[in-house]
């Protein structure tokens, strides 16, 4: 590499940082005010790009057509964002934290299928920008003129946002709401319109970011999730709610990637390793380092207090004996499913999947609910359990021993990562768990010799006596009852009380002598171990595992199950996991557009049961005694 190539890589990095910043600033704005972790942000980006490509076929005449298409697409998507906020999200601000996340995830599913329906499966490559089709000369090398334009878009948007936030009354209200939204409401500001307008502006920025990518990439259906992870990282590294921080973070990440790509090959323990392979996780490595070093991101301030948007969870009480008896009868009845082995063999197969999902969801619920730690990377422990089981098995351990040892691998992972995670709170904790999960994923994905790389490992089947599905089902049922039962038992034990106390008031808990971080660390390891057991059971149920067992999709599935069931109900994971797994299985057979249908069913469920299904049912049937 010489000087001119370094300069060109820097400029290229700046151009892609600019694009990233546009999208990230919208997400940061939305989070700052509404506290929504908006998974659908990437979908709005995708819609912006599709919309712009579609509109350029309408406005073909003149050089203005391109820009009109970009602007109109962004405005149309912003209007869509406003409608979504009004119809769906507005109804959920009263629900416990994270519930909006479930709604935005359902939106991702609906938007993707809607785009498939509207524009078909093929990638659509839009035109280049008029007047910026070619390259200019920089130090004797060609550099795309559109990239020059891109470099300036980021700072321009940053400046415009700064003016808007600092110099207008609307901006004043947004800043006030970011700090203390209840107080803003109490002062008589119409919060509804404030939230809707912020959401619309955030969506506009996402869609604009997408539309401006038209000269760089084709509109395709994988853009939404491909982008959302990277954008989350930018927002968190910069500090949630900090627009300037997002700008700096976007540049840092783009530069790190450019460096990995440009630097070539290095020697790792004597083996050549192309640094470009690191681009798979570069942003997550940066995030992990930043969060460990600065728990609130580079420019983040401690989050303003959110005074209970939803009623705080009432203390957990042992169930009425009659309900308990009913619960035990239901569990015993589950054993009878094994009898269906010959008459309805698939029911047994499906129930194995359901129970494994229940166990996984129960372990995640233990973290999210009673412990108050929102993990976005729980799949890591599920996957470590699954890979642990597979590796012990392939090393020659009997299947039974592998099943027992595997959760220990997950426990070890949770032990190490948990130590870092419990130092953080809120969304930062969530994102650090995600970062660790992505790092584990990328190691598994690339370590061919041990993990089989992207293909994964095959031939992991249970011992002969467990091979019949009904027998394996009984094993899974026993493990699920034992694992989930252990977690429930812990919740009612002193440690559970201390955990819930630490969640509701960390300061007071510390004051009465509870070592909050250590307690949370223990909870983290316990939850990780149980998730590892679920993963090990999964490996032997499928005979195959691949990196998707610990990919972000599975973490999200877990969140969806827990939220669907209800965070504040011990039975929540059972109901949520069963419902989600069954829905996925059934809906997929009904229509080609099963993702959209699944999303719509989920949206309907959220709107009917804003506390989750089990939470809602509990409220209907179980009378809470007010102490």
């Amino acid at each position, binding site marked *: 590499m010489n000087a001119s190539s370094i300069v060109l890589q820097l400029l290229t990095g700046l151009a892609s940082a600019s694009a990233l910043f546009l999208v990230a600033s919208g997400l940061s704005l939305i989070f700052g005010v509404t506290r929504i972790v908006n998974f659908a942000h990437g979908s709005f980006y995708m819609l912006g790009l599709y919309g712009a490509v579609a509109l350029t076929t309408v406005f073909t005449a003149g050089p203005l057509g391109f820009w009109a298409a970009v602007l109109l697409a962004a405005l149309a998507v912003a209007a869509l964002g406003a409608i979504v906020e009004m119809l769906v999200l507005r109804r959920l601000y009263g629900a416990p934290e994270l519930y909006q996340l479930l709604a935005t995830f359902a939106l991702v599913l609906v938007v993707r299928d809607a785009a498939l329906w509207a524009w078909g499966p093929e990638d659509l490559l839009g035109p280049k920008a008029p007047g910026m089709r070619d390259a200019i000369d920089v130090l004797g090398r060609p*550099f*795309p003129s559109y990239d020059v334009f891109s470099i300036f878009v980021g700072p321009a948007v940053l400046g415009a946002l700064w003016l808007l936030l600092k110099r207008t009354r609307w901006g004043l209200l947004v800043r006030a709401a970011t700090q203390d939204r209840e107080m803003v409401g109490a002062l008589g500001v119409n919060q509804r319109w404030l939230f809707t307008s912020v959401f619309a502006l955030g969506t506009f920025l996402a869609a604009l970011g997408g539309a401006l990518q038209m000269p*760089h990439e084709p509109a395709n259906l994988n853009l939404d999730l491909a982008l959302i992870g990277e954008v989350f990282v930018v927002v968190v590294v910069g500090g949630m709610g900090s627009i300037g921080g997002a700008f700096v973070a976007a540049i840092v990440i783009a530069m790190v990637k450019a460096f990995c*790509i440009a630097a070539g*090959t290095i020697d790792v323990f004597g083996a050549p390793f192309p640094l*470009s392979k690191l681009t798979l996780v570069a942003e997550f490595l940066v995030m992990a380092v930043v969060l460990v070093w600065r728990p609130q991101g580079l420019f983040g301030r401690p989050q303003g207090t959110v005074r209970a948007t939803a009623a705080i969870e009432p203390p957990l009480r042992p169930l009425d004996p009659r309900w308990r008896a009913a619960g035990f009868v239901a569990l015993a009845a589950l054993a009878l499913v094994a009898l269906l082995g010959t008459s309805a063999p698939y029911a047994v197969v499906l129930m194995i999947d359901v129970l494994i999902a229940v166990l996984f969801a129960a372990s995640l619920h233990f973290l999210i609910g009673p412990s108050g730690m929102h993990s976005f990377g729980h799949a890591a422990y599920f996957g470590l359990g699954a890979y642990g089981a597979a590796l012990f098995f392939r090393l020659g351990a009997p299947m039974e021993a592998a099943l027992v040892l595997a959760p220990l691998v997950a426990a070890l992972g949770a032990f190490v990562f948990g130590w870092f995670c419990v130092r953080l709170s809120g969304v930062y904790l969530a994102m650090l768990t995600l970062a660790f999960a992505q790092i584990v994923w990328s190691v598994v994905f690339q370590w061919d010799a041990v993990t089989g790389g992207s293909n994964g490992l095959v031939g992991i089947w249970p011992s002969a006596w467990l091979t019949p599905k009904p027998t394996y089902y009984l094993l899974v049922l026993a493990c699920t009852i034992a694992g989930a039962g252990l977690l429930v038992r812990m919740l009612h034990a002193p440690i559970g009380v201390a955990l819930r106390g630490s969640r509701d008031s960390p300061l007071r808990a510390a004051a009465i002598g509870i070592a909050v971080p250590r307690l949370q660390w223990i909870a983290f390891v316990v939850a990780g171990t149980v998730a590892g057991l679920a993963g090990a059971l999964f490996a032997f149920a*499928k005979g195959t595992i691949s990196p*998707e067992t610990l990919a972000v999709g599975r973490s999200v599935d877990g969140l969806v199950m827990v939220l669907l069931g209800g965070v504040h109900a011990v039975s929540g994971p059972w109901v949520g996991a069963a419902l989600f797994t069954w829905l996925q299985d059934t809906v997929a057979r009904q229509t*080609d557009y099963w993702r959209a249908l699944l999303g719509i069913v989920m949206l309907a469920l959220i709107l009917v049961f804003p506390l989750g299904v089990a939470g809602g049912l509990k409220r209907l049937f179980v009378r809470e005694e007010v102490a």
Partner: protein
Amino acid sequence: MLNRIALLVVGVLVGAAAHAQDTIKIGEINSYKAQPAFLDPYKKGWELAVEEVNAAGGVLGKKLQVVSRDDNGNPGDAVRVAEELVSRENVALICGTFLSNTGLAVTDFAKQKKVFFLAAEPLTDKITWQNGNRYTFRLRPNTYMQAAMLVPEAAKLKKKRWVVVYPNYEYGQSAAATFKAMLKKLQPDVEFLPDQATPLGRIEAGAVVQALADAKPDAIFNVLFGADLSKFVREGNTRKLFEGRDVVSLLTGEPEYIEPLKEEAPVGWIVTGYPYYGIQTDEHKKFFLAYFRKYNEYPKLGSVVGYSTIWSIAEGIKKAKSTDTEKLIAAFSGLQVTTPFGKVTYRALDHQSTMGAYLGKTKLEGQKGVMTDYVYIDGAKVLPSDDEVKKLRAID
């Protein structure tokens, strides 16, 4: 009222039973939602084949019926729907899959459950070699064969400094490794500059193109496809990466990948692909016309694969005169099937079909990238020797 419901239920059951007797059910598994660009034409292809087989009287006097399931792009779900197809739908055999990891998962499932499996799309060498088993056959030429078709052409270029760019997962890695090893054999003085391994679907095209240009290679071997390819080509054109450099590129001539590029399609690249616009054999003409008549659009490579999969199964069952798994395996070993690409044989040795691909150069025709000077490379010609395959393939 109850009576009527009971009647209805009985009616449905009897109807289903009668239906089951004169059809052969085939289970099909694919990642329709995860990979729609390739699998939408694929589905159209197999639907056409089912229609043709049944119009010609079906097989063994029964109609073929395909029960299709989406595997959601992941192996866990693939194994579950495979269980469902086998245990609830009672399918005679399973086929399909696109991704290598789902393909391998179902391969292993087939071995465990002793079910016949015809892998249609997945490219990984392992399906028929390292992880091959007696229950699994595969239609499409694998990664090794695809790369091997290009190597002699690459060697003819007599370029010294090569650089390889590939999506960072098994398909990309193994294509790159095969290409390098084989080219080194033909041309010992070749030098490979540091690879560019890009995350699948998320290439930083600007930086990658810049780094490739800085390395000053004489020639480039590309394994990127889909949206990554579009970004790479556009950025490469703007930054003049391809000027004065030869590019050898895997799968780029497939309409799925070259057509979205429209008038920016690269010119002069040596590629493998499917020039549907020019293949004049009778088998292809027949397929092409039937496909165009039914859907009013041109076939893609996926269409050929879907179509040939169902015809292979129909021919296999005819030869076996049964849907019994063991008889199917015996029938498929050495089975000859006429596909739109001509006759292919499912080898008894490793259960790999000898389907090949077209090798040619890209050029622009109006607003569209097409292949020119193409020849069909028979898959049988690029497979390694039997001894090498025996060494690779695990003993069943």
